[in-house]
């Protein structure tokens, strides 16, 4: 491995896959952070399992290529162990909206200072196109040949707002510049942040035209206005035909979870002494 930010690992994403845009957006943000003085060694990326997870092999920084659905739990442990680290999670929609939904909700509830970038291609990519909780109702896949209309998607952004998520943005892989800005803003935000990224899956859900006709940046939206955020998030239910707002949709500064553990650290000698003291006091 060299000092460049992309490893020598062979890239196996399909041609036209939106993951490339996310990879480069994250890379650009990291380069920027380092230029601003964040030590390269203090940045950690935790990936789930899926096509998105391969980003751990491709980015030449410290990474934890974790389990399907568990990236946020792993990341929580890392951040608690060392609150000075910048911890970024790249997760899939199957990964974090299905298998590991509880960890996403609890990360938001705790407001731990971690950024989750959801590669929301609205399919299970790596396992070849089964439906996820955000697959459109018109979607067909091998596990549901008749479509998912009897099991329509949920709106993950509404779930996150209900869970106390303090930073919520939506990006799109065909708006890479904006996506880069959103990821940067999310990482800089103190507290839990999510960038739901509408990602083109060239092989199973290539719906760039659909998105291109509907995405917009709401003019004059105040991300600190919770009611306005709820309204915008509710416009499109990840199923029907509606305008799809991109940008920072909600933002609120709150005390972070890991902050309270900073004072705790003790060294081993002190701990051994404490054990002796406890035993003495038990007599």
């Amino acid at each position: 491995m060299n000092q460049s930010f992309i490893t020598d690992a062979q890239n196996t994403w399909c041609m036209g896959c939106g993951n490339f845009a996310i990879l480069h957006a994250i890379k650009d943000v990291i380069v920027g952070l380092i230029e601003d003085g964040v030590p390269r060694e203090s940045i950690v990326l935790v990936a789930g399992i899926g096509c998105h997870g391969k980003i751990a092999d491709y980015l030449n920084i410290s990474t934890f290529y974790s389990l399907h659905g568990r990236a946020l739990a792993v990341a929580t442990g890392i951040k608690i162990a060392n609150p000075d680290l910048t911890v970024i999670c790249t997760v899939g929609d199957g990964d974090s909206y299905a298998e590991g939904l509880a960890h996403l909700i609890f990360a938001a509830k705790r407001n731990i200072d971690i950024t989750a970038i959801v590669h929301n291609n609205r399919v299970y990519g790596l396992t070849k196109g089964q439906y996820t909780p955000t697959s459109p109702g018109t979607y067909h896949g091998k596990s549901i040949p008749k479509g998912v209309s009897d099991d329509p998607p949920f709106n993950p952004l509404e779930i996150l707002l209900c869970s106390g998520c303090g930073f919520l943005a939506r990006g799109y892989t065909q708006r890479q510049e904006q996506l880069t800005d959103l990821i940067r803003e999310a990482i800089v935000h103190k507290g839990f942040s999510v960038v739901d990224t509408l990602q083109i899956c060239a092989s199973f859900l290539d719906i760039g035209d659909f998105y291109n006709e509907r995405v917009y940046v709401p003019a004059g939206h105040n991300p600190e206005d919770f009611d306005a955020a709820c309204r915008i998030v509710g416009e499109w239910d990840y199923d029907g035909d509606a305008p799809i707002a991109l940008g920072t949709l909600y933002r609120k500064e709150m005390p972070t979870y890991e902050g309270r553990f900073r004072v705790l650290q003790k060294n081993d000698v002190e701990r051994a002494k404490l054990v002796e003291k406890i035993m003495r006091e038990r007599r």
Partner: protein
Amino acid sequence: MADYSVLIGGKAGDGINRAGQVIAKVFTRLGFYCYIYYDYPSLIRGGHNFSVVRIADHPIGGRRDGIDVLLALDATTLKQHRSSARKDAVVLYNADLIHNAEGTAVSLQSIVTEEGGSPVMANTCIIAAFCKSIGIGWDYVEEILRSEVPHEIEKNLRVARRGYAAVDIEKHPSFLVSEEPVGEKILMTGNEGVALGLVAAGLDGYVAYPMSPSTGILHYIAEIAEEAGITVIQPESEIAAMNMTVGMAYGGFRAATGTAGGGFNLMTEGLSLAAMAELPVTVILAQRVGPSTGTPTYTAQADLHYAIHAGNGEFPRFIFAPGDAAQAYECAGHALRLSWKYQVPSIILTDKTLAESTYTVEPSNLPDSIPAQPMNDRNLEGLYERYIDAEDGVSPYAIPGDIGVTIKVNSKTHNPDGISTDTAEGVARCTEKQMRKLPAMRQEISDLRPVIIYGNPDAEICILCWGSNAQLCREVAGHLGIKAVQPLALWPFPAGEVSDAVGDSWMVISVEDNYTGQLAELARNHGIRVDLHIPKYDGRPHTIDGLMELLWGMVA
């Protein structure tokens, strides 16, 4: 030899567990050995709870049949346990709930109400009455209560004084010679032993989801967390607990998690992750009756094979199985230390009997301190690769933030640099690297002298036992003049040491709280002959006498 059993019983919520502890404290301070077995159903109010406090002038670690003192806070206690009390037993009962019984009546509720106390103080009242009945002076009773009762001590003392005064018969047992504190013995549950062992070995973080009988560890570490500088997290599930623990290890925390079988089911994916990523985690698996939810508050030793094989794929791990609080302390420290030394998972296998029983511990017999494994003890100079090949399979451990290193860990099969691979060569190398740790891990276990022999080492009959049964078997072996063998570490299995310890006994009998004989099978798999298995799978530990009878039946 002094050997007495005091049973105190009442409803859940009556503070029976605490009462047992106070009684044990009365005698521990005087230099006696105590053992408390606490029996309770899984509910919060009502039901029937009882504690049996055994008091002796020699080391003990189990219950005997026969009750010498019966303290009944309610009628159920008297009904259920009168028959197991000796004819000449001291019986004290709550006269407000029980009428016309044999023994000494004390109106616990009336006294508590008259003194303006809360209902739970009934147990302070009966403890004081009990102390009087065996001739313990008031001053000593007061001293103990002052040190053991955390709240409303003055009110408790008034209640206690009334209980003390309510008894006029004194039956001074011959073993009570003085009321001067002697020695340095302390009381400790198995769960507390595990917790303190981890702390002494340098625990930084503990993450656990509540599940009996492991919950005591969570509570105890949380209680001392601030003073010990330990981060304690109660997450959303055991899945999260294990994955957070793994994340903590990556971040540089010596971290542990604890659960019972059902929660361990949820942890196995993360256990496998720890193994593949070579991140050290320690997990306490406190066994209770299974399968599934089973019987939450009753004991079992049926997860041994599960612990050995849990997680997909093959990987090295350490498994320790302590048998009392002192061993729990020592094993927990070694489990944490060795998991960091070899960057593998370690499992501390306990059972409900061990976890929640209280044992006498002599701190001077405990190892001084179990040195925590230093984090970066290997050279990180030059190009860092997380899984760089090493002769013993153990690569240098760096943590994020270490200058100039990029640390790529991976749940997928990976190359030395941590990047995924699926080439035949890469896949084989990944497994071989991990398995290369095994010889040194085996040696490490041998160095700890992992097998203990109790009783008569030359006896022809040998009991093979593990976990909480070891202390029972130690006593039984002593009484019967036979031998008992306890492996403290079960994986890597110390086959040579167990085989040597069993020697050429002509009959080897395994005593385990399971149906199938899991240690017996493990031993047989390593070429050690086991002739008979004494199963127990009703959630209750053997009594010493019960076990002796069974053994007599087999060998006579």
